[in-house]
């Protein structure tokens, strides 16, 4: 009977333990809103001072380990999965693109323009902003100017395969004077609706090169 009376504690224990794993009253959906990592008590104390106690200099009586979780900024399902995946990696990816441009010291004195090719205008603006920021971080001179194509050019280029479309657009930008001799265009591109990775191309003097 005593053991039967203790059954409710089986419900209570996981709830109050603070364990982020799914349990009786903690849903799987909630657990999936968390990004977690396992740390040593020392690492945990450095990151969360006051919340996690570091191991004593001569060690603890028992071996301890900490699971530290942070809730995601945007709840899953609020944004489309593709946008969510792109934006989650945007900072790191932009830094990679900017770093890749450092392989072109001949473009140091150029003015850099950024164009994002992504279906959502809102996400496009964020991509463009992040890429400009990253380029400025590399000491590049960045302009807010946007290169323009004529309506006929757009009509032709949008019917081309991606392999041909970007070099063609680059040629047209240079030919119509949107991009000058001292301009470099960093184009950030999502090539396929099923991919969650952005690519970057460089357009200078009418010549297109994939950077990443």
């Amino acid at each position: 009977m005593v053991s039967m009376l203790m059954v409710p504690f089986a419900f209570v224990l996981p709830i109050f333990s603070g364990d982020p794993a799914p349990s009786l009253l903690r849903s799987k959906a909630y657990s999936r809103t968390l990004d977690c990592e396992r740390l040593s008590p020392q690492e945990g104390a450095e990151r969360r001072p006051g919340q996690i106690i570091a191991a004593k200099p001569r060690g603890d009586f028992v071996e301890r380990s900490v699971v530290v979780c942070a809730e995601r900024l945007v709840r899953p399902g609020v944004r489309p999965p593709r946008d969510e995946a792109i934006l989650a990696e945007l900072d790191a990816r932009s830094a990679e693109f900017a770093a890749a441009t450092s392989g072109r010291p001949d473009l140091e004195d150029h003015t850099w323009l950024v164009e994002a090719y992504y279906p959502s205008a809102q996400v496009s603006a964020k991509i463009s902003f992040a890429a400009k920021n990253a380029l400025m971080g590399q000491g590049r001179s960045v302009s807010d100017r946007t290169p323009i194509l004529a309506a006929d050019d757009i009509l032709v280029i949008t019917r081309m395969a991606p392999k041909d479309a970007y070099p063609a657009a680059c040629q047209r930008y240079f030919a119509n004077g949107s991009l000058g001799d001292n301009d470099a265009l960093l184009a950030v591109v999502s090539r396929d609706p099923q991919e969650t990775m952005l690519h970057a191309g460089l357009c200078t003097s009418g010549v297109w090169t994939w950077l990443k």
Partner: protein
Amino acid sequence: MNLEGPTVSAANQSLSTIASVGVWLALVLACGSGCIVRVYQPMSGLHDPIVVDPRAPNFKDVRLTVHCVPGDYLTRSETSALCRKVGTLFENQGAVVRTVDSVGRADDELQDGEKRAIEPTTDLTLELRSRKVHKSNHPLSWALTIASFTALPGVSEYTFAQDVSIRDESGFLLVSDSLKGRVIRRFGFGPWLGNALADIAKEKGERITGGASDRDLSEDMYGQLSQMTFNAKMQWEVLRESAPVRSSEVP
């Protein structure tokens, strides 16, 4: 004076307690390993958004080598099983798959001949390495589970990492990531009963018992592998397109 009354009552109470403990133990023995509630929690990477549909022919005519390297997380047979399942996953998506199972040996211990055999016949190489990040048995919980005749859960857990890297035919790294998750085992009739009863009221995707953790882990793992490989394929295509341009542009 009735001296037998309280004695008989105490004896009955003892018998009743022994009987209830006996019933409880019988239930625990009856459910055996079924009294384990296995819970999976994605920690990082495994629950990232997926756009690609793993049922669609995403890798038509792509030659893919799946290379599984066993570690301290998966045994040899588990590594072989994983390799076969991942191979099937990509075959179903239209890829021409070859699985290389270097069981018992690390990648750098492969023979030169083997490496040469892998390289020329593939477009992409997907390498999977499993490792156990952490393992613990919570001793206090086990003491409590014994003391409570398994009404309270005895908890053990481990954290694993699945390191994924995808390279092109020349060995150039296209995509790499580490998918981390955690598996918690709660032993006891109490937690099992509690979760089983709670699952009745839950939606199917939220249920915990009945092998749900294995299903969830597989779904996450295969989804992420599909997405990463698709991203790698796109990156590979971009590199192939840029190769001739680069050679003519860069002195």
